[in-house]
């Protein structure tokens, strides 16, 4: 077993005596617990952001990838004929699973957010929309456009690509931002714990001197500090994670009206993901303290 594995194993074995050789109190203890707790709290939100962005990206992708809209703008007296022609063309187009003209009520509902519910849609020259649902294979967009151009001059095919891609891109960037935030939080945690460990080692120079005097090996001294800081980080991060989860629980539930903001949180097995934060914080503390302890001890005479 490597030295690292032995050291890591020793963290979780009971060794009251080696725990006690380092004085228990001091600001470094509080700093480590507080920093780990605060960082774990922030990590829960960064995780929630990242997972929600991922869900959003895939939802937008799934919902929009297999649907498109045909918009027909024509004089009122030609509208019905052009709609019928378009539906006929769509029915005979390979890759189109369903083509359906939206009802007046449905079109009214789409415009309601901008014009209110009392819009007299029948008296306005509103284009007729046809919803197209594609099969898994999809249709040939260029071919369909040529056929529509010939048979339905007022039709414009919108396959959503134009605005789906930026949305998916934005969601992807948000997810990346979440992961970058988590990486930064981990790095900041490591930096704070390294500072705290350095301060603790400096404050306990006398302890280290006494331990060396009685024949303690550097590994023993490092272990005493590493164990303490790792367990503090673990407990702080556990508390921060619980508080973070509580705060996420208090967020409003996902609603269509709220859009992305109300969807920030975890779903299903996603609630288990934050439970990896405390062990990861402990690992970060373990590596940071071990590096600091080894460096400081090697510099001492």
């Amino acid at each position, binding site marked *: 077993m490597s030295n690292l594995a032995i050291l890591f194993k020793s963290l979780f074995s009971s060794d009251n005596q080696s725990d006690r*050789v380092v*004085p*228990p109190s001091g600001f470094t203890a509080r700093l480590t617990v507080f920093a780990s707790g605060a960082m774990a709290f922030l990590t829960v939100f960064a995780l929630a952001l990242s997972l929600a962005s991922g869900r959003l990206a895939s939802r937008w992708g799934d919902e929009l990838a297999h649907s498109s809209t045909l918009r027909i703008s024509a004089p009122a007296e030609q509208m019905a004929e052009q709609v019928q022609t378009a539906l006929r063309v769509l029915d005979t187009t390979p890759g189109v699973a369903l083509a359906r003209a939206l009802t007046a009520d449905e079109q009214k509902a789409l415009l309601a957010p901008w014009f209110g519910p009392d819009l007299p849609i029948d008296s306005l020259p509103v284009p007729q929309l046809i919803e197209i649902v594609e099969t898994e294979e999809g249709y040939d967009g260029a071919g369909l456009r040529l056929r529509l151009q010939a048979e339905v001059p007022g039709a414009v095919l919108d396959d959503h690509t134009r605005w789906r891609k930026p949305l998916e891109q934005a969601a992807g960037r948000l997810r990346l931002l979440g992961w970058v935030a988590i990486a930064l939080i981990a790095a900041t945690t490591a930096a704070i714990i390294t500072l705290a460990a350095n301060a603790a080692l400096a404050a306990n120079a006398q302890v280290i001197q*006494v331990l060396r*005097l*009685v024949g303690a090996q*550097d590994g*023993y001294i490092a272990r005493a500090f590493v164990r303490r800081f790792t367990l503090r980080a673990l407990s702080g991060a556990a508390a921060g994670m619980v508080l973070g989860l509580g705060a996420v629980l208090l967020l409003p539930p996902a609603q269509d009206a709220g859009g992305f903001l109300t969807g920030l949180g975890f779903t299903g097995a996603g609630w288990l993901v934050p439970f990896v934060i405390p062990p990861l914080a402990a690992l970060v503390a373990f590596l940071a303290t071990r590096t600091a302890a080894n460096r400081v001890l090697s510099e001492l005479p």
Partner: protein
Amino acid sequence: MIELENLGFSYGEGEMLSDISLKLAPGSFHFLTGPSGSGKTTFLKLCYGALQPTAGHARLFDQDVRHMSRDDMAMTRRRIGVVHQDCQFLDHLPIADNVALPLTVSGRDSLEEVANLKELLDWVGLGKRASAYPPELSGGERQRAALARAVIMSPDVVLADEPTGNVDWDMSQRLLQLLIELNRMGKTIMIATHDLNLIRTAKSQVQARVLRIAGRRLQLAGADL
């Protein structure tokens, strides 16, 4: 055991010790004298590897300190008991835990060793003060506790730096008797002191060699003591 050969030591540019050769034989008893600032403490530190010579060689148990790894040095220190002038305890631990510290760091804190600890504390007269913390002890008690800690691993050598510096005459006699008793058990003892009365008392009971640091060099003293 401890062997110094043409050893020199400098702090920066100022030479503290020069051309010192000495071999500590098993079971021998030494006093180290010299005026304050002559380098007695530095000499003892060179004897247990806390400092490395800047010239010559220091060999501890046949290993040159320059070629010893940090772990090897730690293992070697378990064979050398050191009583510091200022004792050096961990103030947050009771005195029993401080005395047992060498056992703790070497993983020898078994039940049997704990029983030995009690016996040892009784030997130095601290059986009833086991749960007291270092700042609560008197100077003499601290020195006795430091001596108990120095010998708990049954080391081959005990180095004591002014062990009677902060105690009254009676206590210094008591500490001296403990060190003489250790020497009779076969331990090599070296005591750094400028207390000539202590040396005279010891010489009436054991065969002790008296060394003096003067002018950065180690000399054999004795005729005047």
